């Protein structure tokens, strides 16, 4: 099953705590998941100040500056993995370096029914 691991963190703290991961460590971890054959995609995101939210209502698009929801923690990155079951996905999530300063939400991917 595919799982999306969403990495949330208070952006102000993501790179400033003693436990904060360096890019090199994040890259090494992503490569290790790649090596195990479970990786589908993973990216880190630019800060929420760069976010734009799109809505389409009655055929009209509206744009707003900023993220969909103003919260204390922001989406900082994601891993899309292919795991045998939730336990395996949780094991991958546990190793994501940013889990030490933020949190990782693990969500199974819903296959669209054609």
């Amino acid at each position, binding site marked *: 099953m595919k799982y999306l691991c969403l990495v949330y963190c208070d952006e102000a703290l993501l790179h400033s705590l003693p436990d904060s991961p360096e890019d090199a460590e994040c890259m090494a971890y992503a490569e290790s998941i790649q090596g195990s054959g479970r990786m589908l995609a993973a990216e880190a995101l630019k800060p929420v100040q760069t976010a734009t939210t799109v809505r389409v209502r009655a055929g009209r698009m509206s744009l707003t500056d900023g993220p969909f929801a103003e919260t204390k923690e922001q989406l900082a990155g994601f891993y899309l993995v292919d795991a045998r079951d*939730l*336990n395996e996905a*949780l*094991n991958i999530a546990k190793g994501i370096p940013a889990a030490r300063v933020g949190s990782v939400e693990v969500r*199974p991917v819903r296959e669209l029914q054609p």
Partner: protein
Amino acid sequence: MVGEAQVRQEVEAVYRRDSRRILATLIRLLGDFDLAEEAMHDAFFIAVQRWQRDGIPDNPRAWLVSVGRFKAIDALRRSARFDRSQADLIMLLEREADDPGEQTLLADDRLRLIFTCCHPALASDAQVPLTLREVCDLTTEQIARAFLQSPATIAQRIVRAKAKIRDAKIPYQVPELSELPERLESVLRVIYLVFNEGYSASAGEDVTTRELTDEAIRLGRLVAQLLPDAEVHGLLALMLLQASRQRARSTADGELVLLDEQDRSLWDRGQIDEGSQLVQQALRSRDFGPYTVQAAIAAVHAEAPCAEATDWDEIIGLYDVLQRHWPSAVVELNRAAALARRDGAQVGLQAVEAILQRGELGDYHLAHAARAELHRQLGNLDQARDAWQQALTLTRQGPERRHIERRLRELG
């Protein structure tokens, strides 16, 4: 031909003895709680007729699992939502039917089921009802009554948990060794919650709900049998030692009797002996945890012929061990109570006040009860009255409320 009455009797006996094991195996094979439950009931239904014609099989459990599996294959084939993934499942099921390795798996199926029901990814208020429903076969109504919830609430929690197991694909397995400590912790927590809800129902009229304490001990034995870990023995010991006082801790009309005032001849010696032996065994392993130390404390109480003869040095030493490795304000409160017994009410009261002054346990009725009792012993009747009043506003359980009210009346 076998007589119908005899067959029905046998089927009922097998149901009572083995239905949870059969269900656990079918859940592993089918990967779906509801499908497995349906398949199991189909299998028992068919057994009533088939066993009359063909005789009772040598291994009724294996027979029922096998029939349940084929009924599930039939049901899947007929199902309107038949799709590719179900075709795969059927293939897998048909292949596994001939797998000789399967017998060795059977014994572990209930353990798998417990680990699944207590998976930390499930809502914590669903783990207990799900375990009681699936592993212990309590009905939703029984669980609702025990936890003073409506059956609809309990049913909804169970349904949601089952949906998450299916949709997020929570596996049906005993965790790997590296994950075992934290996963086992969750299983033991659920078992102890079941026990405690039975032993000191958090609200309502009964001091104990025997059914739940018995189920918790049964679960503890089951896990201990399949996974002989020191803390599992520690928890089983703790439950046995606490349960040993069950007959002594309430009067015939349901009033609470405190440890000091209990008639110790009513304590269950069998449970005490078994519990004490398990504690010793767990302590020797050197790999024990907080349940084992709490059990050791309960064992010291159990060994004292009367309250005055309790070895308070030993008890305080054990609380020190608990506080050093697994610190908590409740442990500190219990240690303070033991301290009061050994070194006097004034010393104990200072220790209790220190916890409350830190802003901890302010809404825990037993903290105020301890404070009240110690003030009374010191002759500070006004403070004692205030503390009992505070304790009273914080407890919902009938017998405990009446106990506090009695104490208040005694103060005049």
